[in-house]
């Protein structure tokens, strides 16, 4: 049973590049933490984490080459659900905390 699309996805070349970028971003996020960016630090570190995760999901987990729409939609749906759970909870704690 063919389990990949016609274009062969992944491959050592791509994986090594992604690995390199991931390590670079890791270094970046550690450095960013020692700069004093104030409020921007949280956004920066979460932003970098998001980019790293996207790289893992798209390239290591092959979503970049996935043909099936359902599979491409799953993570966005899940993350949106989580965002809503956290967001609506914040309607409570934003007011009560502080």
């Amino acid at each position, binding site marked *: 049973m063919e389990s990949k699309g016609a274009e062969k996805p992944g491959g050592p070349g791509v*994986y090594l590049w992604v690995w390199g970028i991931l390590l670079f971003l*890791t270094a970046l996020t550690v450095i960013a933490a020692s700069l004093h960016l104030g409020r921007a630090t949280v956004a920066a*570190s979460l932003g970098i*984490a998001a980019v790293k995760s996207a790289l*893992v999901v798209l390239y*290591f987990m092959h979503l970049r080459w996935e043909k099936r729409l359902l599979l491409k939609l799953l993570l966005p749906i899940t993350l949106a659900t*989580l965002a809503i759970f*956290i967001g609506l909870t914040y309607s409570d*704690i934003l007011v009560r905390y*502080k």
Partner: protein
Amino acid sequence: MGGPDREAAPNVPRGRVGMWLFICTEVLLFGGLFLLYSAYRYHHPVDFHEASLELNRFFGTLNTSVLITSSLSVALAIHALGENRKPRTLAFLAVTLALGATFLVVKGFEWGEKFAHGLYPNSPFLDSQSKGKILYFGLYFMMTGLHALHVLVGLGVLSAFLRLVAKGRISAEKPVLLENAGLYWHLVDVIWIFLFPLFYLIT
């Protein structure tokens, strides 16, 4: 049992659909913990920062790199499987296992250090600290602990599948089991990618 079921969308093994759905449930499982973390950090920003200074950034960065590299090695293992290169597949899987084990060892060492300093839930020392610090460490152990449990399970699954590859029960013709294990492993990596800055890099 009857004729073959017709796949509504050929070329996508149903095991992969099931695995992705399972991954979504894991995201939401940890998501509940991230909800708690974000609420309590919002409430105690200074305490969280001070508490995070107790963590060792070197080990955190090391472990992050270890896990990222293990994601690389498992991806290479699956690719080698697809090209029918069994020895290479086994080698990359072994590397993944070694790296995963390294992660757990480092984690164990970090935890040991915390225990030695009286920083663990219900310790008299921790209970005497401010609420924000108690919450930080409660969440630290809970989240890194749950994550480490997932790493352990992943190692168990990967070593079982390594044996199956060696026996030929997982092969280029039947790769789905290993592909799914790889997906799970990458998920474990992604969770750590978020845990790392949230616990080690708070300013």
